[in-house]
């Protein structure tokens, strides 16, 4: 049997161009889908509700204020923590007052930046999102609502973070919801 004529070994070069193209596309995709606002959310166990709707408001100029509430009664806003669960009424009062001041500062900040924060009737345009743990006591949520509706702040628009029950039927979804 005659020896087969093997081809000469060439230096094999991979063409990198398509891979780099795809890789850049992936980078762009992930860059665009990244939503830095989620960084403000604490990982809490959200309450379940069938009628929750996706937030379609992508207008960054009217970003809402996000108030996290942990199960134990600790409020966290932009890394600042306020413990509302203190038994001592004086400490409790201080936490609530601090919360009020902070929220007021947020609104003032917006106003100083030249934004129309208030409606003609005096209500605040910017909503507050209450991102609360489902185990948190309702009274803490009530206090947050109370702070938001304070005459010096006047935020009447509220949003509650919820998620769908895992066993929900599609038929139960809200009519206009996604």
């Amino acid at each position, binding site marked *: 049997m005659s020896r087969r004529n093997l081809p000469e070994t060439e230096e094999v070069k991979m063409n*990198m161009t398509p*891979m*780099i193209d795809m*890789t*850049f596309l992936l*980078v762009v995709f*992930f860059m665009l*889908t*990244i*939503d830095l606002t*989620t960084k403000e*959310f604490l990982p809490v*166990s*959200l*309450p*379940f*509700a*069938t*009628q*929750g*709707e*996706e*937030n379609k408001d992508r207008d960054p100029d009217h970003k809402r204020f996000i108030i996290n*509430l942990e199960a134990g009664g600790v409020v966290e806003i932009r890394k600042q923590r306020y413990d*509302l669960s203190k038994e001592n*009424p*004086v400490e*409790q*009062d201080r936490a*609530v007052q601090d919360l009020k001041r902070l929220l007021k500062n947020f609104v003032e900040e917006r106003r100083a930046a030249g934004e129309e924060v208030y409606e003609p009737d005096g209500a605040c345009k910017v*909503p507050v*999102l209450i991102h609360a*743990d*489902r*185990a948190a*006591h*309702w*009274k803490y*949520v*009530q*206090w947050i*609502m*109370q702070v*938001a*509706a*304070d*005459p010096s702040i006047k*935020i*009447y*628009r*509220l*949003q*509650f*973070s*919820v*998620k*769908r029950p*895992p*066993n929900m039927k599609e038929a139960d979804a*809200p009519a206009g919801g996604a």
Partner: protein
Amino acid sequence: MAVQVPKAEDTEMNMTPMIDIVFQLIIFFMLQLKFKEIDRQIDSNLPKDRGLAATPTQPPDFQKIKIKVFRREFDKAETEQYTLVKIDNTHEFQLPKAWKGYNDEPKDRQNEYDATIAKIEAVVKSKWNAQPDKSLVKGEIVAPPPKGGFVPHGDIMRMLDVFLVTGLTDVVFEGAAAPLTNAERAAAMGGGEG
């Protein structure tokens, strides 16, 4: 004078470092990616006209469907606590004890919870259907202190959800929250309209 020009070589850029960095970027952005679809919200408004008024002023011809929620045994261990739901003082339901949410409960408990919610929905729906003028019907979620204050947020949201499922979108939260010593601030708070 003839200068010997060096032969044009096939210059090749070394791609390896760039690809390394690009992959790092991909990994960074991938880890940042969060699927937001489970994150939904319920919008609601606090009543502007009323604000913090202790006694809500409402036209007397409003028909209310009132859901009262209490936390029973709230001073005992967590496993003993449960939420009691009263609808217009005619119906009473007990949510499962120490309910932690779907993900943390066995299947039979989930079904028990769902069945209770379905019963509450049925009652609210029948009351809603019995009303001739739907525009005059308000839902009300009352959490009387101190027992009401200990109701988990999740249960209140579920009751709000019951109203929304029924089609009742005008919901008021009631329940004096008195966190403050100051008499004025201790005055009851109004609530939110969903």
